[in-house]
Protein backbone atom coordinates (compact mmCIF):
# COMPACT_ATOMS: atom_id res chain seq x y z
CA UNK A 1 0.00 0.00 0.00
CA UNK A 2 2.81 2.38 0.98
CA UNK A 3 4.12 2.95 -2.52
CA UNK A 4 6.94 5.24 -3.57
CA UNK A 5 6.34 5.23 -7.33
CA UNK A 6 3.86 3.75 -9.74
CA UNK A 7 4.39 3.90 -13.48
CA UNK A 8 1.66 2.14 -15.45
CA UNK A 9 3.54 2.69 -18.72
CA UNK A 10 6.47 0.57 -17.49
CA UNK A 11 4.29 -1.60 -15.25
CA UNK A 12 6.28 -0.46 -12.19
CA UNK A 13 4.96 -0.49 -8.64
CA UNK A 14 7.80 0.37 -6.28
CA UNK A 15 7.12 0.49 -2.57
CA UNK A 16 9.30 2.31 -0.03
CA UNK A 17 10.78 -0.91 1.36
CA UNK A 18 11.91 -1.93 -2.10
CA UNK A 19 13.47 1.51 -2.60
CA UNK A 20 15.33 1.29 0.74
CA UNK A 21 16.66 -2.20 -0.07
CA UNK A 22 17.60 -1.19 -3.58
CA UNK A 23 19.57 1.80 -2.29
CA UNK A 24 21.25 -0.29 0.41
CA UNK A 25 22.50 -2.74 -2.21
CA UNK A 26 23.75 -0.06 -4.60
CA UNK A 27 27.52 0.01 -4.90
CA UNK A 28 28.16 2.42 -7.75
CA UNK A 29 27.07 5.91 -8.66
CA UNK A 30 27.12 7.92 -11.88
CA UNK A 31 26.52 11.68 -11.51
CA UNK A 32 25.22 11.96 -15.06
CA UNK A 33 21.60 10.89 -15.01
CA UNK A 34 19.93 10.31 -18.37
CA UNK A 35 17.06 7.85 -18.38
CA UNK A 36 13.46 7.68 -19.49
CA UNK A 37 12.71 5.49 -16.48
CA UNK A 38 11.38 7.74 -13.69
CA UNK A 39 12.47 5.31 -10.99
CA UNK A 40 16.08 5.39 -12.19
CA UNK A 41 16.07 9.20 -12.22
CA UNK A 42 14.56 9.43 -8.72
CA UNK A 43 16.90 6.77 -7.34
CA UNK A 44 19.90 8.56 -8.81
CA UNK A 45 18.87 11.86 -7.15
CA UNK A 46 18.31 10.11 -3.80
CA UNK A 47 21.68 8.36 -3.88
CA UNK A 48 23.41 11.64 -4.75
CA UNK A 49 21.73 13.24 -1.72
CA UNK A 50 22.82 10.42 0.58
CA UNK A 51 26.45 10.46 -0.53
CA UNK A 52 26.57 14.25 -0.86
CA UNK A 53 27.71 14.36 -4.48
CA UNK A 54 26.54 16.37 -7.47
CA UNK A 55 23.87 14.95 -9.75
CA UNK A 56 23.55 16.21 -13.33
CA UNK A 57 20.13 15.71 -14.90
CA UNK A 58 19.94 15.27 -18.65
CA UNK A 59 16.70 14.99 -20.63
CA UNK A 60 16.30 11.45 -21.94
CA UNK A 61 15.62 12.81 -25.43
CA UNK A 62 18.72 15.02 -25.71
CA UNK A 63 20.49 14.23 -28.98
CA UNK A 64 24.22 13.36 -29.01
CA UNK A 65 24.77 16.78 -30.53
CA UNK A 66 23.00 18.53 -27.65
CA UNK A 67 24.81 16.39 -25.06
CA UNK A 68 28.22 17.26 -26.49
CA UNK A 69 27.35 20.95 -26.56
CA UNK A 70 26.06 20.90 -22.99
CA UNK A 71 28.50 18.59 -21.24
CA UNK A 72 31.34 17.94 -23.65
CA UNK A 73 30.39 14.22 -23.78
CA UNK A 74 27.87 11.95 -25.47
CA UNK A 75 28.65 8.84 -23.42
CA UNK A 76 28.67 8.80 -19.62
CA UNK A 77 29.51 5.20 -18.65
CA UNK A 78 33.08 6.24 -17.87
CA UNK A 79 31.87 8.43 -15.00
CA UNK A 80 30.57 5.52 -12.93
CA UNK A 81 32.33 5.41 -9.56
CA UNK A 82 32.31 3.20 -6.50
CA UNK A 83 30.35 4.60 -3.59
CA UNK A 84 32.91 5.37 -0.88
CA UNK A 85 30.80 6.42 2.06
CA UNK A 86 29.08 3.07 2.22
CA UNK A 87 27.75 3.85 5.69
CA UNK A 88 25.51 6.57 4.34
CA UNK A 89 23.56 3.96 2.40
CA UNK A 90 22.74 1.66 5.30
CA UNK A 91 19.16 2.73 5.68
CA UNK A 92 16.83 1.17 8.22
CA UNK A 93 13.52 2.11 6.68
CA UNK A 94 11.48 4.83 4.95
CA UNK A 95 11.65 7.32 7.82
CA UNK A 96 15.41 6.79 8.19
CA UNK A 97 15.77 7.49 4.44
CA UNK A 98 13.76 10.71 4.66
CA UNK A 99 15.62 11.83 7.79
CA UNK A 100 19.03 11.23 6.16
CA UNK A 101 17.94 13.18 3.07
CA UNK A 102 16.92 16.09 5.29
CA UNK A 103 20.47 16.06 6.68
CA UNK A 104 22.00 16.36 3.21
CA UNK A 105 25.34 18.13 3.36
CA UNK A 106 26.10 21.56 1.92
CA UNK A 107 28.35 20.16 -0.80
CA UNK A 108 25.45 18.41 -2.56
CA UNK A 109 24.18 20.05 -5.72
CA UNK A 110 21.82 19.34 -8.54
CA UNK A 111 22.53 20.57 -12.07
CA UNK A 112 19.99 20.95 -14.82
CA UNK A 113 19.73 22.79 -18.11
CA UNK A 114 17.42 25.63 -19.03
CA UNK A 115 16.76 27.63 -22.20
CA UNK A 116 19.43 30.28 -22.29
CA UNK A 117 18.78 33.79 -23.50
CA UNK A 118 21.25 33.23 -26.33
CA UNK A 119 22.19 30.06 -28.18
CA UNK A 120 22.24 26.73 -26.35
CA UNK A 121 20.53 25.89 -23.04
CA UNK A 122 22.49 26.97 -19.97
CA UNK A 123 23.50 25.07 -16.88
CA UNK A 124 21.79 25.95 -13.58
CA UNK A 125 22.87 24.53 -10.21
CA UNK A 126 20.93 24.37 -6.98
CA UNK A 127 21.94 23.26 -3.52
CA UNK A 128 19.67 21.45 -1.07
CA UNK A 129 18.51 24.65 0.58
CA UNK A 130 17.55 26.41 -2.66
CA UNK A 131 15.84 23.40 -4.25
CA UNK A 132 13.73 22.67 -1.15
CA UNK A 133 12.98 26.31 -0.27
CA UNK A 134 9.32 25.96 -1.19
CA UNK A 135 8.71 22.41 0.01
CA UNK A 136 5.84 22.40 2.50
CA UNK A 137 6.46 19.90 5.27
CA UNK A 138 3.39 19.23 7.34
CA UNK A 139 1.61 16.38 9.07
CA UNK A 140 -1.48 17.09 6.95
CA UNK A 141 0.55 16.35 3.79
CA UNK A 142 1.59 12.86 4.85
CA UNK A 143 -1.20 11.03 3.01
CA UNK A 144 -0.95 13.02 -0.22
CA UNK A 145 -0.59 11.12 -3.46
CA UNK A 146 1.01 13.03 -6.29
CA UNK A 147 0.15 12.73 -9.95
CA UNK A 148 3.56 13.38 -11.54
CA UNK A 149 2.93 15.37 -14.70
CA UNK A 150 6.30 16.91 -15.55
CA UNK A 151 9.48 15.75 -17.12
CA UNK A 152 11.51 14.43 -14.11
CA UNK A 153 14.69 16.19 -15.29
CA UNK A 154 13.09 19.65 -15.41
CA UNK A 155 12.82 22.14 -12.53
CA UNK A 156 9.05 21.80 -12.07
CA UNK A 157 9.33 18.00 -11.92
CA UNK A 158 12.20 18.18 -9.41
CA UNK A 159 10.15 20.42 -7.14
CA UNK A 160 7.17 18.05 -7.17
CA UNK A 161 9.58 15.17 -6.50
CA UNK A 162 11.05 16.87 -3.40
CA UNK A 163 7.62 17.89 -2.12
CA UNK A 164 6.48 14.25 -2.37
CA UNK A 165 9.75 12.67 -1.18
CA UNK A 166 10.21 14.76 1.98
CA UNK A 167 6.59 14.22 3.00
CA UNK A 168 6.89 10.49 2.29
CA UNK A 169 4.12 10.62 -0.34
CA UNK A 170 3.45 8.23 -3.19
CA UNK A 171 4.12 9.38 -6.75
CA UNK A 172 2.13 8.21 -9.78
CA UNK A 173 3.65 8.95 -13.16
CA UNK A 174 1.14 10.69 -15.44
CA UNK A 175 3.44 12.59 -17.80
CA UNK A 176 3.43 11.35 -21.38
CA UNK A 177 0.42 9.05 -20.89
CA UNK A 178 -2.76 9.02 -22.95
CA UNK A 179 -5.70 10.80 -21.24
CA UNK A 180 -7.54 7.48 -20.81
CA UNK A 181 -4.60 6.06 -18.81
CA UNK A 182 -4.27 9.29 -16.81
CA UNK A 183 -7.92 9.08 -15.73
CA UNK A 184 -7.51 5.40 -14.84
CA UNK A 185 -4.40 6.14 -12.75
CA UNK A 186 -6.04 9.05 -10.92
CA UNK A 187 -9.03 6.90 -10.08
CA UNK A 188 -7.24 3.68 -9.12
CA UNK A 189 -4.54 5.37 -7.03
CA UNK A 190 -6.80 7.98 -5.43
CA UNK A 191 -4.42 10.76 -6.50
CA UNK A 192 -4.87 13.89 -4.39
CA UNK A 193 -2.49 16.43 -5.97
CA UNK A 194 -1.48 17.28 -9.52
CA UNK A 195 0.90 19.98 -10.65
CA UNK A 196 1.13 20.39 -14.43
CA UNK A 197 1.24 22.80 -17.34
CA UNK A 198 -2.03 24.15 -18.78
CA UNK A 199 -1.32 22.04 -21.90
CA UNK A 200 -1.35 18.88 -19.80
CA UNK A 201 -4.77 19.80 -18.39
CA UNK A 202 -6.11 20.89 -21.79
CA UNK A 203 -5.24 17.47 -23.22
CA UNK A 204 -7.50 15.90 -20.56
CA UNK A 205 -10.47 17.98 -21.71
CA UNK A 206 -13.31 17.57 -22.41
CA UNK A 207 -14.24 14.72 -20.07
CA UNK A 208 -17.53 13.40 -18.74
CA UNK A 209 -15.88 11.78 -15.71
CA UNK A 210 -15.41 13.26 -12.25
CA UNK A 211 -12.49 12.65 -9.89
CA UNK A 212 -13.37 13.57 -6.32
CA UNK A 213 -10.04 12.34 -4.84
CA UNK A 214 -8.15 15.35 -6.26
CA UNK A 215 -7.99 18.16 -3.72
CA UNK A 216 -5.36 20.38 -5.31
CA UNK A 217 -4.61 21.30 -8.91
CA UNK A 218 -1.58 23.51 -9.58
CA UNK A 219 -0.66 24.98 -12.89
CA UNK A 220 2.16 27.13 -14.17
CA UNK A 221 4.49 27.79 -17.05
CA UNK A 222 1.99 29.47 -19.34
CA UNK A 223 -1.29 31.32 -19.19
CA UNK A 224 -4.31 29.41 -17.97
CA UNK A 225 -7.61 30.66 -19.35
CA UNK A 226 -10.93 30.93 -17.51
CA UNK A 227 -12.60 28.33 -19.69
CA UNK A 228 -10.01 25.66 -18.86
CA UNK A 229 -10.31 26.52 -15.16
CA UNK A 230 -14.09 26.11 -15.19
CA UNK A 231 -13.89 22.81 -17.12
CA UNK A 232 -11.32 21.52 -14.60
CA UNK A 233 -13.56 22.53 -11.67
CA UNK A 234 -16.22 20.24 -13.11
CA UNK A 235 -13.93 17.23 -13.53
CA UNK A 236 -12.24 17.80 -10.15
CA UNK A 237 -15.13 19.02 -8.00
CA UNK A 238 -13.15 18.98 -4.73
CA UNK A 239 -9.99 20.61 -6.03
CA UNK A 240 -8.56 23.99 -5.19
CA UNK A 241 -7.00 25.39 -8.36
CA UNK A 242 -3.80 27.42 -8.01
CA UNK A 243 -1.56 29.19 -10.51
CA UNK A 244 2.16 29.40 -9.79
CA UNK A 245 4.92 31.56 -11.16
CA UNK A 246 8.10 29.56 -11.53
CA UNK A 247 11.29 29.44 -13.55
CA UNK A 248 14.09 26.92 -13.97
CA UNK A 249 16.48 29.35 -12.35
CA UNK A 250 14.39 30.06 -9.25
CA UNK A 251 11.74 27.36 -8.99
CA UNK A 252 8.28 28.22 -7.68
CA UNK A 253 8.14 31.78 -6.40
CA UNK A 254 4.56 32.95 -6.09
CA UNK A 255 1.12 31.43 -6.21
CA UNK A 256 -2.31 32.84 -6.92
CA UNK A 257 -5.87 31.54 -6.96
CA UNK A 258 -6.70 33.55 -10.08
CA UNK A 259 -4.45 35.61 -12.32
CA UNK A 260 -3.52 38.15 -9.62
CA UNK A 261 -0.29 37.29 -7.80
CA UNK A 262 0.79 38.56 -4.42
CA UNK A 263 4.14 38.26 -2.65
CA UNK A 264 4.75 36.92 0.82
CA UNK A 265 6.10 39.68 3.10
CA UNK A 266 9.31 37.72 3.78
CA UNK A 267 10.11 37.70 0.05
CA UNK A 268 9.26 41.36 -0.59
CA UNK A 269 12.87 42.61 -0.28
CA UNK A 270 13.98 40.02 -2.86
CA UNK A 271 11.65 41.28 -5.58
CA UNK A 272 11.82 44.50 -7.59
CA UNK A 273 9.77 45.88 -10.42
CA UNK A 274 11.74 48.09 -12.82
CA UNK A 275 10.15 49.44 -16.00
CA UNK A 276 7.27 47.01 -15.41
CA UNK A 277 9.68 44.06 -15.53
CA UNK A 278 9.99 41.58 -12.66
CA UNK A 279 13.48 41.41 -11.16
CA UNK A 280 14.47 38.68 -8.71
CA UNK A 281 17.37 38.89 -6.28
CA UNK A 282 20.12 36.41 -7.02
CA UNK A 283 19.82 34.85 -3.55
CA UNK A 284 16.60 33.22 -4.78
CA UNK A 285 18.28 31.76 -7.84
CA UNK A 286 20.40 28.72 -8.48
CA UNK A 287 23.94 29.56 -9.55
CA UNK A 288 24.38 29.97 -13.27
CA UNK A 289 26.43 31.94 -15.73
CA UNK A 290 23.12 33.60 -16.68
CA UNK A 291 23.24 35.46 -13.38
CA UNK A 292 26.12 37.83 -13.00
CA UNK A 293 24.54 40.71 -11.08
CA UNK A 294 22.59 41.08 -7.84
CA UNK A 295 19.28 41.26 -9.66
CA UNK A 296 18.08 38.91 -12.39
CA UNK A 297 15.86 40.27 -15.17
CA UNK A 298 13.12 37.68 -15.64
CA UNK A 299 11.85 39.19 -18.90
CA UNK A 300 8.32 38.97 -17.49
CA UNK A 301 6.31 42.16 -17.80
CA UNK A 302 3.80 42.96 -15.04
CA UNK A 303 0.72 45.03 -14.60
CA UNK A 304 0.69 46.34 -11.01
CA UNK A 305 -2.70 46.11 -9.30
CA UNK A 306 -1.69 47.53 -5.90
CA UNK A 307 1.69 48.80 -4.70
CA UNK A 308 1.32 48.05 -1.02
CA UNK A 309 0.86 45.19 -0.56
CA UNK A 310 2.29 44.37 -3.98
CA UNK A 311 -0.23 42.63 -6.22
CA UNK A 312 0.24 42.13 -9.92
CA UNK A 313 -0.73 40.31 -13.05
CA UNK A 314 1.69 38.90 -15.67
CA UNK A 315 1.10 40.57 -19.02
CA UNK A 316 3.73 39.43 -21.45
CA UNK A 317 7.38 38.54 -21.87
CA UNK A 318 10.17 40.76 -23.12
CA UNK A 319 12.41 38.03 -24.43
CA UNK A 320 12.26 36.01 -27.62
CA UNK A 321 11.94 32.72 -25.74
CA UNK A 322 8.90 30.80 -27.00
CA UNK A 323 6.72 28.89 -24.54
CA UNK A 324 5.53 25.65 -26.16
CA UNK A 325 3.15 23.91 -23.79
CA UNK A 326 5.30 24.94 -20.81
CA UNK A 327 8.62 24.10 -22.52
CA UNK A 328 10.85 27.09 -23.21
CA UNK A 329 12.33 27.19 -26.68
CA UNK A 330 15.03 29.59 -27.75
CA UNK A 331 14.48 30.45 -31.44
CA UNK A 332 18.21 31.18 -31.87
CA UNK A 333 19.11 27.62 -30.89
CA UNK A 334 16.58 26.25 -33.40
CA UNK A 335 17.84 28.58 -36.14
CA UNK A 336 21.40 27.42 -35.47
CA UNK A 337 20.35 23.77 -35.84
CA UNK A 338 18.43 24.43 -39.08
CA UNK A 339 21.28 26.42 -40.59
CA UNK A 340 23.57 23.45 -40.08
CA UNK A 341 21.42 21.45 -42.55
CA UNK A 342 23.19 21.32 -45.93
CA UNK A 343 21.45 23.37 -48.63
CA UNK A 344 19.75 25.86 -46.32
CA UNK A 345 20.73 29.45 -46.95
CA UNK A 346 18.73 31.29 -44.33
CA UNK A 347 16.06 30.71 -41.72
CA UNK A 348 13.80 32.60 -39.35
CA UNK A 349 12.11 30.81 -36.46
CA UNK A 350 9.00 32.37 -34.94
CA UNK A 351 5.99 31.45 -32.87
CA UNK A 352 2.34 31.35 -33.75
CA UNK A 353 -0.29 31.27 -31.02
CA UNK A 354 -2.01 27.92 -30.75
CA UNK A 355 -5.11 26.69 -28.96
CA UNK A 356 -3.47 23.42 -27.87
CA UNK A 357 0.05 24.40 -26.78
CA UNK A 358 -0.22 28.14 -26.24
CA UNK A 359 2.40 28.63 -28.94
CA UNK A 360 3.76 26.56 -31.78
CA UNK A 361 7.15 26.88 -33.47
CA UNK A 362 7.15 27.75 -37.16
CA UNK A 363 9.90 28.80 -39.52
CA UNK A 364 10.56 30.36 -42.88
CA UNK A 365 13.42 28.80 -44.80
CA UNK A 366 15.38 29.98 -47.82
CA UNK A 367 16.78 26.88 -49.58
CA UNK A 368 19.25 26.68 -52.42
CA UNK A 369 17.73 23.62 -54.09
CA UNK A 370 14.30 22.02 -54.35
CA UNK A 371 15.52 18.66 -53.07
CA UNK A 372 15.13 19.98 -49.53
CA UNK A 373 11.66 19.20 -48.23
CA UNK A 374 9.85 19.80 -44.96
CA UNK A 375 10.20 16.14 -44.00
CA UNK A 376 13.90 15.97 -44.93
CA UNK A 377 14.62 18.97 -42.67
CA UNK A 378 12.59 17.45 -39.84
CA UNK A 379 14.37 14.09 -40.15
CA UNK A 380 17.75 15.80 -39.82
CA UNK A 381 16.58 18.01 -36.96
CA UNK A 382 15.44 14.95 -35.02
CA UNK A 383 19.13 14.02 -34.74
CA UNK A 384 20.07 17.48 -33.51
CA UNK A 385 17.42 18.91 -31.18
CA UNK A 386 14.58 17.75 -28.94
CA UNK A 387 11.20 17.11 -30.57
CA UNK A 388 9.39 20.06 -28.95
CA UNK A 389 11.99 22.45 -30.41
CA UNK A 390 11.44 21.29 -33.99
CA UNK A 391 9.24 23.66 -36.07
CA UNK A 392 5.83 22.13 -36.82
CA UNK A 393 5.32 24.25 -39.93
CA UNK A 394 8.20 24.89 -42.29
CA UNK A 395 7.50 27.35 -45.07
CA UNK A 396 9.84 27.80 -48.04
CA UNK A 397 10.31 31.44 -49.04
CA UNK A 398 12.51 33.36 -51.44
CA UNK A 399 13.53 35.84 -48.79
CA UNK A 400 12.89 36.33 -45.08
CA UNK A 401 10.40 38.73 -43.56
CA UNK A 402 11.70 41.00 -40.84
CA UNK A 403 9.59 39.87 -37.90
CA UNK A 404 9.49 36.75 -35.75
CA UNK A 405 5.76 36.99 -35.23
CA UNK A 406 4.78 36.35 -38.84
CA UNK A 407 1.35 35.05 -39.67
CA UNK A 408 0.98 31.92 -41.73
CA UNK A 409 -1.01 32.66 -44.85
CA UNK A 410 -2.93 30.29 -46.99
CA UNK A 411 -1.02 29.28 -50.13
Amino acid at each position, binding site marked *: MDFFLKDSELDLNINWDFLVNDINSTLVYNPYCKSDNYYQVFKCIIISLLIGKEVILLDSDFSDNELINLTGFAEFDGFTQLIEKKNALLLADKSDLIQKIKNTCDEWKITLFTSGTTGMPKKVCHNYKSITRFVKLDEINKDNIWGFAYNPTHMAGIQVFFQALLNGNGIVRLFGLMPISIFKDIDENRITHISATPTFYRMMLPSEDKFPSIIRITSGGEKFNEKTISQLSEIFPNARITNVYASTEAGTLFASENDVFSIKPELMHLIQVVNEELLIHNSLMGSSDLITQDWYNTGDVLEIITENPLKFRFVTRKSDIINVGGYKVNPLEVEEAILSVHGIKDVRVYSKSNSVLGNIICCDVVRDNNQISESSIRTLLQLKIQE*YKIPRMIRFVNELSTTRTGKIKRD
Partner: protein
Amino acid sequence: METKLLEIINTVLENRTNEKLTSLRPDMNLRYDIGFDSLDLAELTVRIEAEYDIDIFEEGIVNTIGEIFEKLNRK
Protein backbone atom coordinates in the same frame (compact mmCIF):
# COMPACT_ATOMS: atom_id res chain seq x y z
CA MET B 1 -12.69 17.83 -48.08
CA GLU B 2 -12.00 14.29 -46.86
CA THR B 3 -9.05 13.89 -49.23
CA LYS B 4 -7.58 17.20 -48.11
CA LEU B 5 -7.99 16.34 -44.41
CA LEU B 6 -6.41 12.91 -45.01
CA GLU B 7 -3.51 14.65 -46.71
CA ILE B 8 -3.06 17.04 -43.75
CA ILE B 9 -3.22 14.22 -41.21
CA ASN B 10 -0.71 12.19 -43.21
CA THR B 11 1.67 15.16 -43.35
CA VAL B 12 1.56 15.37 -39.54
CA LEU B 13 2.09 11.60 -39.25
CA GLU B 14 4.93 11.63 -41.78
CA ASN B 15 6.65 14.50 -39.98
CA ARG B 16 6.95 12.29 -36.91
CA THR B 17 7.96 9.30 -39.10
CA ASN B 18 4.71 7.50 -38.35
CA GLU B 19 2.86 5.30 -40.83
CA LYS B 20 0.37 7.06 -43.12
CA LEU B 21 -3.36 6.32 -43.20
CA THR B 22 -5.17 5.13 -46.32
CA SER B 23 -8.60 6.44 -45.35
CA LEU B 24 -10.49 8.30 -42.63
CA ARG B 25 -13.56 7.20 -40.69
CA PRO B 26 -15.69 9.66 -38.67
CA ASP B 27 -15.38 7.53 -35.51
CA MET B 28 -11.56 7.57 -35.57
CA ASN B 29 -10.17 9.10 -32.36
CA LEU B 30 -7.31 11.52 -32.97
CA ARG B 31 -5.41 10.46 -29.87
CA TYR B 32 -6.22 6.77 -29.43
CA ASP B 33 -6.68 5.58 -33.03
CA ILE B 34 -4.34 7.92 -34.89
CA GLY B 35 -1.91 8.29 -31.98
CA PHE B 36 -1.56 12.09 -31.97
CA ASP B 37 0.09 13.74 -28.94
CA SER B 38 -0.22 17.41 -27.98
CA LEU B 39 2.52 18.48 -30.43
CA ASP B 40 0.76 16.64 -33.28
CA LEU B 41 -2.64 18.09 -32.36
CA ALA B 42 -1.12 21.57 -32.28
CA GLU B 43 0.38 21.04 -35.73
CA LEU B 44 -2.95 19.71 -36.99
CA THR B 45 -4.76 22.90 -35.89
CA VAL B 46 -2.19 25.13 -37.62
CA ARG B 47 -2.38 23.16 -40.88
CA ILE B 48 -6.18 23.08 -40.86
CA GLU B 49 -6.24 26.79 -40.06
CA ALA B 50 -3.86 27.52 -42.93
CA GLU B 51 -6.15 25.59 -45.30
CA TYR B 52 -9.66 26.40 -44.03
CA ASP B 53 -9.09 29.51 -41.88
CA ILE B 54 -10.72 27.90 -38.82
CA ASP B 55 -9.23 26.99 -35.44
CA ILE B 56 -10.85 23.60 -34.73
CA PHE B 57 -9.68 23.54 -31.10
CA GLU B 58 -10.74 27.06 -30.21
CA GLU B 59 -13.51 25.77 -27.95
CA GLY B 60 -11.55 22.83 -26.49
CA ILE B 61 -9.89 19.72 -27.85
CA VAL B 62 -11.97 17.75 -30.36
CA ASN B 63 -11.70 13.98 -30.18
CA THR B 64 -12.73 12.45 -33.49
CA ILE B 65 -12.41 12.91 -37.24
CA GLY B 66 -16.21 13.26 -37.35
CA GLU B 67 -16.02 16.27 -35.00
CA ILE B 68 -13.47 17.94 -37.31
CA PHE B 69 -15.78 17.41 -40.32
CA GLU B 70 -18.61 18.91 -38.30
CA LYS B 71 -16.55 22.04 -37.49
CA LEU B 72 -15.42 22.45 -41.11
CA ASN B 73 -18.95 21.97 -42.45
CA ARG B 74 -20.36 24.51 -40.01
CA LYS B 75 -18.07 27.17 -41.42
